[in-house]
């Protein structure tokens, strides 16, 4: 059972790590957009 749970946990860990990188890139982009808007105004 340990191997089974390890495999399932590893699967979700990989997906979560990837999703975190996507969210971080979204936040980075939002910062850039805010900076751009600040410059314009």
């Amino acid at each position: 059972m340990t191997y089974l749970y390890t495999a399932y946990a590893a699967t979700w860990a990989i997906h979560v790590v990837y999703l975190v990188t996507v969210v971080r890139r979204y936040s980075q982009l939002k910062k850039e957009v805010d900076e751009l808007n600040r410059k314009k105004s």
Partner: protein
Amino acid sequence: MKKAFPILGLLTAVLLSYALYEALVVAPTEQTMGDVQRIFYYHVPSAWTAFLLFFLNFLASVQYLVRRDPKTDAIANWVVIALGVLTCIAPYAFRNLLPVGVYPSSVVTTGIAFVGLYFLIHKLFSEQQTDMLALTTAEVGVVFCTVVLVTGPIWARPVWGIWWTWDVRLTSTLVLWLIYVSYLVLRRFSSSGQTPVLAAALAVFGALDVPLVYFSIWFFRTQHPQPVIGGGGAIDPRMLHVLLINWLAFLCFAFLVCWSRYRLERAKREVDETLALEALLEPRSALR
């Protein structure tokens, strides 16, 4: 569209939870391997999803290359139609040449799906958007391929007694992963204007490895288990049901991740264009 995303997200979460319950509780325990066989319900759907995403990456990359010139685009459209017709006729005409377990109807279905997806991408995405689609599908495909490469050895250790062996299926999967990782590295670190073209060319060659990975267990004697669907393999109908539910759940999940990654890429390019425009305009305003 903004409302559709959270609704689809919720439905996918429910489906993934149900699929997990089916895999851990409902699916019958395999007699020889025991519970460790249940890794199969994550390993196989992840592999199929990765293959599908790499196939979409291939179609998007081909379109990005051919749509730069209208004449080449028109020729490519006719070539795709001709290939579609050929895959509908050839499997029945040369039935004897097909490997054991490959049915003519499955080749025809693959051919029709290929033509359908090609023209669907052609209709829904512009030339620049095909490049974004290629990048998105490659990135998410690498994530699913990583899952395959991690869950495989975790299953192999208790069943084979080893984590890894250099047989055709495992090695070709690792090569496939390395090809798409290099594709992403190229996209990430090359700033040349030709990067999308080079990446698209790399993706077209990379996609050639997908059929090699898939059919390696049909054509070569490998340590990897033989195909459970087609190829003369058999699977308990209850296990097949759980396998397909998990694949559906992972497909929905992959679709959502691709969607959000595609939106991010589109927004990023818009911001980059605006920044480039600002940079062009700034010296002029300084002169005034």
